[in-house]
């Protein structure tokens, strides 16, 4: 596996993407297609008193209008008397789309209009009129801080190591609060689905999903269908960042509508609906309490996080995880609570809770470094640990010291004047900041089918997904390394539920998990080919053993004899050789803690009069094991940094709590970084294989690219200005003097 860096592969689907030929879910044209548009609730909580759909029904081209009054029943939503009733959400509610007159959040769908053209559906949806009985509601986490509830199950339990109060007696103490507002994934592609039934028991959907198998399972559950009767296609996905990790209720609604009218139905949600119905990063308030010796040895760390969920579903994430294992500290306590509010349910957003937590911890570490008059890197090195203090295991690989050094050198860290507000560039204040990120690395279970054909091609299939990182490119690279086929003869197909099962794309696991399956399938094909030659290859191979065979350029060689695999198949009258292999982690993994790490550096300019912050330079270093596909890996890092700059400086979904409604639910008012906000970004990879995780030695990187980055920016802003901003985003009003 030594050749990865020699020839960085262009994205294998690049040509399709630059010519407009890549097809995303909404771009499949089925005969008799119809178009769905949702009408949504204008109140935040209460119930529908009347809903007038007459003019909508009468509008031209309208085929059906669904409301709670005529919504077909969804078999999987009926309670099953043979099973124990599911536990109610902590907020006590249950949400079924168009299931009743109850309104649980603003923007909840109240009707679905289906018409024969998009414009007709849009117009008809605008004619729906509802009256409501309003009830009081809560959407503001800051006003409901006292309503935190413990998440059920072991993951929600409080964590204690040593003495939780140790920080109180430390020589140097720090106690601070950090706030992060709601952020919305806002992938460029709007969410939605196309659903098409054959008869009453067979459905095909074109979905925007991070997991075709999980969407398939959701549809099987909802409509009580056999697996073979549910097909999910999702070849290209226009970004997800976590929001497509589940099947949302409105997707089931569209499937129900398609069944009812007996024609394919397409729903493409509007941008404002992307704020209310497909999740978000929850608002969070975190407390960090640190105690340290004068020399910078941490003696106590308490991390408490409060986060929002909906009244009808509990959502929890790993916000406090990093504090348990990142630094050597004998006394650590963490607490995590959620508050049910009258708003749609959140979902993991890139980096998820870990990114939320890292902002707090890594800002606090910077604050502590300044209190101690220590360099922030020196403080981290002082508390560096080679074993995971949470689980008392060694890390499978950890090159964080190297990462600090490489990043610091590249950005000129030690050349800066560390005193706050000491550096200037003309009118602008100059600041440097650094931070760390960490995320669980793992290898799940996946399957892959691999076929070599007599036309000289290698086909790989797995029900994996690609929301953008370049799954296909990495898989082709792995297959090339194992089986030696030229990359342009290898195709990797994904996004199809009929392929061998693979998990959803989330939690930075695809390369490790699906890549291992590809690796194993290709190795198994290799064995098949060797055995074929040993058995039927004739005298040339007499006395040879498996170790004598090498593979390159589509050929297999033993000694002086080389034959192309394609011609071998032809000789043997075999159109193809095929295997399907299963891959999962071995027991060895339990002996180690496996994490990917990132170390970020940012250089900022802050304008003292206007409070404008510009990120001038970025260096980000990833310790994510062996890099499979350097080009796409670098893109993932710069993408994470860009998301991190958004999180640090601009992203905030604002609710007017008087009405419970988002007031900036569009791309003009919800600010995401644009080109002018993003500088050149240097990405550095440690690129050393992890010896434990998988045959490639590759850990994940999608999350670590973003995790911690916002703290690097905030720390740089402090260095530039002497002002510590603990409430994201760091907008000019918070800095203006």
């Amino acid at each position, binding site marked *: 596996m030594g050749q990865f860096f020699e020839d960085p592969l*262009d*994205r294998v*689907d*690049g040509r399709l*993407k*630059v*010519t*407009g*030929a*890549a*097809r*995303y879910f*909404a771009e499949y044209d089925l005969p008799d297609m119809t*178009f769905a548009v949702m009408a949504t609730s204008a109140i935040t909580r209460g119930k529908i008193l009347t809903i007038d759909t007459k*003019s909508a029904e*009468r*509008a*031209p*081209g*309208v*085929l059906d209008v669904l409301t709670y009054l005529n919504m077909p029943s969804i078999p999987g939503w009926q309670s099953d008397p043979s099973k124990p009733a599911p536990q109610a959400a902590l907020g006590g509610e249950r949400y079924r789309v168009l299931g009743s007159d109850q309104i649980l959040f603003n923007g909840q769908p109240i009707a679905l209009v289906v018409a*024969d*053209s998009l*414009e*007709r559906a849009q117009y008809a949806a605008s004619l729906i009129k509802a009256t409501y009985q309003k009830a009081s509601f809560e959407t503001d986490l800051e006003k409901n801080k006292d309503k935190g509830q413990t998440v059920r199950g072991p993951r929600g339990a409080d964590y204690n190591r040593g003495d939780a109060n140790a920080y109180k007696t430390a020589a140097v103490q720090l106690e601070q609060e950090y706030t992060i507002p709601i952020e919305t994934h*806002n*992938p*460029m*592609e*709007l969410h939605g689905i196309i659903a098409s039934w054959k008869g009453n028991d067979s459905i095909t959907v074109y979905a925007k999903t991070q997991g075709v198998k999980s969407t398939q399972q959701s549809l099987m559950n909802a409509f009580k269908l056999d697996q073979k009767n549910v097909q999910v296609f999702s070849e*290209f*996905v*226009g*970004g997800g*960042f976590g929001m497509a990790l589940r099947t949302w209720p409105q997707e089931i609604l569209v499937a129900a509508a398609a069944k009812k009218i007996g024609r394919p139905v397409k729903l*493409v949600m*509007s*941008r404002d609906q992307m704020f209310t119905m497909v999740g978000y990063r929850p608002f969070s308030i975190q407390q960090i309490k640190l105690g340290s010796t004068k020399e910078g040895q941490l003696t106590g760390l308490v991390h408490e996080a409060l986060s929002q969920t909906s009244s009808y579903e509990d959502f929890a994430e790993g916000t406090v995880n990093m504090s348990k294992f990142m630094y050597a500290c004998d006394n650590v306590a963490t607490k995590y609570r959620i508050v049910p509010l009258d708003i749609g349910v959140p979902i993991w957003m890139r980096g998820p809770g870990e990114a939320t937590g890292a902002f707090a911890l890594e800002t606090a570490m910077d604050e502590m470094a300044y209190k101690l008059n220590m360099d922030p890197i020196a403080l981290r090195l002082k508390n560096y640990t080679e074993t995971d203090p949470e689980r008392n295991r060694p890390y499978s690989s950890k090159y964080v010291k190297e990462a600090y050094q490489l990043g610091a050198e590249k950005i000129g860290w030690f050349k800066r004047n560390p005193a706050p507000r000491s550096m200037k560039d003309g009118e602008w204040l100059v600041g440097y900041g650094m931070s760390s990120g960490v995320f669980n690395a793992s290898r799940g279970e996946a399957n892959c089918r691999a076929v070599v054909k007599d036309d000289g091609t290698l086909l790989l299939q797995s029900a994996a997904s690609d*929301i*953008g990182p*370049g799954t296909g490119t990495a898989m082709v690279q792995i297959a090339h390394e194992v089986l030696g086929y030229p990359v342009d003869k290898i195709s990797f197909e994904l996004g199809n539920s009929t392929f061998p099962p693979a998990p959803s794309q989330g939690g930075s696991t695809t390369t490790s998990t699906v890549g291992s399956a590809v690796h194993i399938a290709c190795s198994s094909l290799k064995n098949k080919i060797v055995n074929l030659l040993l058995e039927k290859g004739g005298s040339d191979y007499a006395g040879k053993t498996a170790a004598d065979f090498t593979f390159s350029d589509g050929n297999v060689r033993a000694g002086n004899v080389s034959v192309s695999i394609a011609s071998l198949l032809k000789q043997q009258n075999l159109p193809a050789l095929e295997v399907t292999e299963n891959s999962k982690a071995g027991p060895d993994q339990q002996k180690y803690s496996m994490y990917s790490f990132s170390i970020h550096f940012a250089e900022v300019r802050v304008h003292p009069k206007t409070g404008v912050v510009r990120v001038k330079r970025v260096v980000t270093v990833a310790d994510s094991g062996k890099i499979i596909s350097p080009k*796409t890996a670098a*893109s*993932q890092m*710069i*993408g*994470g*940094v*860009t*998301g991190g700059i958004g999180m640090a400086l601009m992203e905030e979904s604002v609710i007017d709590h008087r009405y419970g409604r988002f007031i900036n639910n*569009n*791309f*003009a008012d919800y600010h*995401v*970084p*644009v*080109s*002018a906000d*993003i500088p*050149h970004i240097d990405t550095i990879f440690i690129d050393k294989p992890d010896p434990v995780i998988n045959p490639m030695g590759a850990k994940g990187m999608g999350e670590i690219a973003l995790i911690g980055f916002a703290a690097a920016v905030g720390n740089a802003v402090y260095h530039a200005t002497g002002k510590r901003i603990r409430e994201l985003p760091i907008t000019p009003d918070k800095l203006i003097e």
Partner: protein
Amino acid sequence: MKEKNPGTEENKGSSRRTFFKQSSAIAALALTPVSIVKASEKGLDEKIASAFEKMPLRVEINSKAYSLEVEPRVTLLDLLREQLHLTGTKKGCDHGQCGACTVHVDGRRVNSCLTLAVTTEGKKVITIEGLAKGEELHPVQQAFIQFDGFQCGYCTPGQIMSAVCCIREGHANDPDQVREFMSGNICRCGAYSNIVDAVMHAKKGGQQI
């Protein structure tokens, strides 16, 4: 769009007829063949009524002449995507805020979601599907591949169409200028720094853009 479900004709009839009674005589008569007006006033067919609401549109798209009938409310974006199935042009916001729908109209980059299709009468539209010369990619497309100027690819057609004009406008003289003049195209995957490199490379390559 064809009527496919006769079962709902009944419902639609009345509003349709009212519309014709009130407006057909006044405004539409001048524009419409007598036979159609007669047919509709007899309350005949929804198909005819629907044809009546459409306007003729002659437009050249990717060097192909189209003669279409479209409702005046249809945007160029929805015409391309939903009726002509030229789905390379993307919808990201439908409000002129993201640039995913960027196409060229008479050589200028425009947001097709903010452009009513009927306003392109007699004009030349180029979409991402019309940029390459057959198998040969446009230099900007080539540069996007080389510099990995994308991830999910959803913003990419808009970025590329925008970049081509950015260069032609003379707004690609240095990376900062590219950043400024490409800031109408959001990339949520965050490929900007590679996009800037790709645009600068295409510009410096000296090929006809």
